[in-house]
């Protein structure tokens, strides 16, 4: 039976009519009790399980998922990874994630198709160029890679962009992060699931949470559609449903949920080999390995749990793209979708113990959860295993809203929140 993926195993299975491959993960029946129970089988939940087993040697873990693995926001994003944030706390967080992404394929023995093709955040005025210089300085001081690009530099990475001074949004330059790029989003979820499963983690799909089991003021587990599951510690990692689950646990969160849309064009030959983001036009785009242009933008302005998105924002995003790249006007859109993102008042995530003792949270990533998956998993695993914050996650505890120490990254997210 072939368990490990390699050139040799590919060759052997080729000779063997591909009959020896094993299922990537088991589908076990839930046990009545675990050391740690993780609600949510997206990237962050699966990564948390993997790092609990790998870094902390805790194996009696279950991940429960209402739908299927990676069927929420992990499967609904635009696959960009980057760490071009402004504040030291944020850079520490997203840079941890990007560094882990750089070796994740080998670590998981799963090809996550990381492509560090760089990201250019465009500046469309002298004033925006000054802000770009400030951002580059902040990023370099915070220890991540950043360069200030002028118009000629932009031409070098974006040969098709309209650089005419008469353009509606003339390009003055931008912020370049060369280590940013894209990764295959489904592969990230599947790779973590397979690696966690091999370390003994039970991954249970089609298992919906009913009520929390609370005894002596502590969370002791959950009632699910597949019976009661008890655990010493419980984590909710359920982007797009965080407020809903928090209400079941008896508290409210500083979160408003919005749809975030994306769309892809028909596939074309390679035309865009970097990620381009324009805050002024509210648009960003990259080209997938399949050739489709992957196009995203800002949040819908209507709070929503409907995973569809609305037309006004989609029109705005597409018109912004076509202003910058007139040649893309010929393309047809193939499909459009939306994920539900949990937006906090400071556009930064929430990592920490919830108001219900024993219940821990990883939520509030807004539009930027995918790029943070390895860090979110590492940090929540640290919290669950030790009961204490990692230095990197401490600033993102829920208590920052009562203490007034917000980390206002509305600009670092690049797209208006």
């Amino acid at each position, binding site marked *: 039976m072939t368990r490990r993926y390699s050139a040799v195993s590919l060759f052997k299975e080729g000779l063997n009519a591909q009959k020896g491959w094993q299922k990537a993960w088991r589908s076990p029946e839930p046990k009545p009790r675990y050391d740690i129970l993780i609600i949510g089988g997206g990237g962050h939940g699966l990564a948390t399980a993997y790092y609990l087993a790998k870094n902390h040697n805790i194996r009696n873990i279950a991940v429960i998922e209402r739908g299927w693995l990676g069927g929420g926001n992990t499967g609904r994003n635009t696959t960009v990874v980057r760490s071009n944030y402004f504040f030291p706390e944020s850079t520490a967080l997203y840079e941890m994630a990007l560094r882990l992404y750089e070796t994740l394929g080998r670590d998981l023995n799963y090809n996550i198709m990381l492509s560090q093709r760089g990201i250019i955040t465009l500046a469309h005025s002298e004033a925006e160029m000054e802000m770009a210089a400030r951002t580059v300085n902040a990023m370099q001081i915070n220890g991540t890679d950043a360069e200030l690009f002028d118009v000629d530099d932009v031409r070098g990475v974006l040969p098709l962009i309209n650089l005419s001074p008469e353009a509606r949004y003339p390009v003055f330059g931008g912020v370049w992060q060369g280590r940013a790029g894209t990764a295959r989003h489904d592969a990230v979820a599947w790779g973590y699931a397979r690696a966690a499963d091999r370390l003994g983690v039970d991954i249970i799909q089609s298992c919906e949470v009913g009520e929390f089991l609370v005894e002596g003021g502590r969370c002791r587990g959950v009632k699910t559609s597949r019976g009661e599951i008890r655990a010493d510690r419980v984590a909710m990692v359920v982007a797009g449903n965080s407020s809903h689950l928090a209400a079941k646990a008896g508290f409210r969160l500083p979160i408003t949920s919005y749809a975030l849309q994306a769309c892809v064009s028909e596939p074309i030959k390679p035309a865009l080999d970097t990620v381009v983001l324009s805050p002024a036009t509210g648009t960003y785009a990259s080209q997938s390995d399949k050739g489709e242009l992957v196009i995203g933008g800002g949040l819908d*302005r*209507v709070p929503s749990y409907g995973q569809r998105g609305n037309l006004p924002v989609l029109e705005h995003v597409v018109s912004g793209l076509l202003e910058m790249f007139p040649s893309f006007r010929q393309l047809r859109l193939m499909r459009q979708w939306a994920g539900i993102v949990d937006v906090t008042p400071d556009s930064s995530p929430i990592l920490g113990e919830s108001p219900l003792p024993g219940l821990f949270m990883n939520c509030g990533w807004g539009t930027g959860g995918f790029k943070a998956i390895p860090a979110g998993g590492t940090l929540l695993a640290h919290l669950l295993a030790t009961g204490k914050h990692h230095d990197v996650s401490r600033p993102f505890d829920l208590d920052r809203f009562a203490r007034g120490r917000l980390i206002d990254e509305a600009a670092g997210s690049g797209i208006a929140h």
Partner: protein
Amino acid sequence: MQLFPCPFCGPRNESEFHFGGDAGNLRPEGFRDVTDGQWTAYLHERNNLRGPANEIWMHMTCGEVFSMERDTVHHGVAQAIALANGGGDDGMAH
């Protein structure tokens, strides 16, 4: 494009409206008596309901502020009530 009902102007495009938060999120009164927890709840915590929700909206074109009962999953609007006169016409064609 979804139409939202302004109690003053009637059905208008969704892009003319601005979301104003939960209905009933009243500023805590009594300067010295308000705890950190009460301020945090007022400033930051949100109901963020999945399903029927009662929210404050503004029609930016005319400036009318009103409460709207709206389902956050399928986006159906049950009613919209002007706040100016303590309620009234919901602005929807019947």
